[in-house]
């Protein structure tokens, strides 16, 4: 099996993978970072979204081997010095999560949204940009509020 190396949440990591090993499998099973979730098998739910070289991608639809050398940020890597990222804080403050399963992907996608579009986001923009993230619990109402608040604080 080929060996790959990456920088995940600022730490150099390496591991052996098969060609078919998905990024999410590498992250969850090889690195033990189980905050990144798998909610579907057709690349739609977004529970697996991580930042790869600064951009949100679906880790269930990426081959680990194709990302040899990449810089990856998972939900575990967002808090700094024990303090949550403003987007994480905003999700808590606005009750933007219930069961927590879609949450890591939702938070990463929201940070990516702000990175791309800036801090001033309309409700329509937020809803449209969350196209790739499905939540079954919250009805999105509080997620939208959280993203708006989190964006302003980023």
């Amino acid at each position, binding site marked *: 099996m080929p060996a790959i190396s990456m920088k995940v949440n600022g730490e150099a990591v390496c591991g052996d993978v098969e060609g078919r090993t998905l990024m999410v499998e590498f992250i969850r099973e090889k690195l033990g970072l189980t905050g990144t979730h798998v909610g579907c098998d057709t690349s739609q*739910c977004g529970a697996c979204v991580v930042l790869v070289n600064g951009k949100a991608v679906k880790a269930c639809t990426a081959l680990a081997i194709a990302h040899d050398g990449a810089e990856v940020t998972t939900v575990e890597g967002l808090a700094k010095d024990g303090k*949550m990222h403003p987007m994480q804080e905003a999700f808590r403050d606005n*009750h933007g*999560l*219930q*069961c927590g*399963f879609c*949450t890591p992907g939702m938070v990463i996608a929201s940070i990516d949204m702000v990175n791309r579009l800036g801090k001033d986001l309309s409700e329509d923009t937020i809803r449209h940009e969350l196209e790739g993230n499905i939540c079954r*619990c919250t009805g999105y109402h509080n997620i939208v509020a959280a993203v708006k608040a989190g964006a302003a604080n980023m």
Partner: protein
Amino acid sequence: MDNGTGIGARVKRKEDHRFLTGKGNYTDDINLPKQTYAYFVRSPHAHATINKIDTSKAKKMPGVVGIFTGDDVAATKLGGLICGWMIHSKDGSPMKAGPHPILALGKVRYVGDHVAVVIAETRDLAKAAAAAVDVDYGVLPHVVDVADAMGHKAQIHEVAPDNRVFNWSIGDEAATDAAFKKAAHITKIDLVNNRLIPNAMEPRAAIGYYDTGAEHYTLYTTSQNPHVARLVISAFHGLAPEHKLRVIAPDVGGGFGSKIFIYAEEVVCAWASKFVGGRPVKWTAERTESFLADAHGRDHVTHAEMATDASGKIIGFKVHTKAAMGAYLSTFSSCVPTYLYATLLSGQYNIPAIYAEVDALYTNTAPVDAYRGAGRPEATYVVERIVETAARELKMNPAEFRRKNFITQFPHQTPVIMCYDAGDYAAALDKALEIADVKGFPARKKASAAKGNFRGLGYSAYIEACGIAPSAAVGSLGAGVGLWESAEVRVNPVGTVEILTGSHSHGQGHETTFAQLVSDRLGVDINNVAIVHGDTDKVQFGMGTYGSRSGAVGMTAISKALDKVEAKAKRIAAAVMESSVDDIEFKNGTFTVKGTDKKMAFGEVALSAYVAHKFNSAEIEPGLKESAFHDPSNFVFPAGVHIAEIEIDGETGVTTVANYTAVDDFGNVINPMIVEGQVHGGITQGIGQALIEGCVYDKESGQLVTGSYMDYQMPRAADVPSYKLGFTCTPCPSNPLGMKGCGEAGAIGSPPAIMNAVTDALGVKDVPMPATPHVVWQQLQHLKKAAE
């Protein structure tokens, strides 16, 4: 207490930090040493005999540890899956429950039915070997639509030659017929309550582990009620006695009912571990499997008639429903279209005579069981659609027609078992009318029309019954379990508190709301309270979380245990402060002696309880730990009024929810933030049912057409608006906290509100759910043709 974390405070959730930092602990996050992976061979046919299963090729595949079929299961005498609620037909005969083997024996009855399991070193290897298991099927005729099931040539179970599980009735048929004879007007409607697939975002998963030394099983599972799972797996499947089986449901990523049930896959993981040398066996559903094999929801076909008198008062209501059970009776399936459904057919209305009959039918589909609301959304859909239709036919304002028929005196005994204890339906209606700006609707409708669009307004005045109870009553109706809840309050010597509860949070925020109750009662900082749940080794017993029962039932059990803690702490405080227990007062976490300046903080009393230096331990036992079981005296009855305003694109048929108002009466609320979140989520699932989601099986092939997110539409952020919520409060008299339930209300109230709005917009009697753009466009075409 007024510290900002007590009852009624919008406390931020304690559990969120771990979820937000990726430290949740879901079943699939757990990995055990020497773990193996299970993959299930599933039926590709809707209905077939199994002539032969050849595993010889698969057994030789790399990494295969074991392959098991129904014969292997049968050889160990592991019992089949059960349905825990006995329903009797109107003729007195018991329901016809066909066998439901853990792995198929001789026959498969739906696409996705569990045929065999392959256990291998990795998931990929198990999957590859499963593909090599050669099953020789003899295809049989099938039926997937409940409307066609009765007497269909596809006979699904021998015990039910006509596919009918039961023919059940409720209410007084003669009185109802008599009322209809006196009717000035009779409104009739035919409705389909579309089948839904629950789709909790965390797929089901399990790890079964047999300790060969201790001869003890552990099962990690995505369950809403781990104790019930242990009970059933022990008592009915006979895997192991309860003290030899530990069931752990760690963080669970949503349930919505689908994780109440005892499924084959989880049982197999535990069972099979013993036969692979005690190696742990892990299974995580692929989403495709969730679609195929999680219990589905709804799937009713109903004809209803409502009789009104000349003044517009409802005088009688008749309902006939065909309810799909799927291919097997799932754990609680039989109570859903009966006692959770027809007992709510009185809605919020004073209806003197009601009669309902339900035919439960087998179909060659995934089993149907409780899904958010479970029976109550189906009842509300029938009631609120026909009430709206009656109002239109009588040319009455639908809000005022409802108001005219509202129950206003409590308690109110309906003709269908339920005795409503408290409510103020008109107050909710008034508030909803205001929030929704119904007065401004005509102008908005005009503006829509000017753009070629159709705007509609729809009401839904729902009532639901939750916290199913009391146990003796549900037992007399056929339930196999009691529906109480247990709690244990453990006060530690330093005054921190652990609450062990039989409720199970899978998104509801119990770690916060339950701690708020404790903080409120004991004056303990919310951060000094821990909630322990989901582990049968830690919590003695419990019934779990479903049916919006954790507040009204689960928290009441905690409250009762807190009463005992407080009583004992007072005795200890009295002894330590050398006063009479009658003179001890407890407020804001401090015990005081009436009329003196003597006082002890709660933590001091706790320490005294454990050091036991200052009281006679012959009179007072050391320690401070109490437990309670609470069996409610009645259901609780949340109710409310929802108003939906929708706009239909005249060109494309796309329906947009322009405004959505929900006014709910949940009695006293512990944490408004969490309650609002429950309502938001429920409404979205209801909008999903009304406009978006529909499970489709192909009539010809019996295949599940909507088997992935490519074809089963999930509500996404852009599909729904932000909601306008309001609350009224009539405290529930049957529990000390005055709480009702809020978990399902949104999903119960919203489908009829939306569909009443859609039919209002189009000026038609019915549009089938889900009213997708395609469906609505077809309606527009009919209207166009009719106009031509």
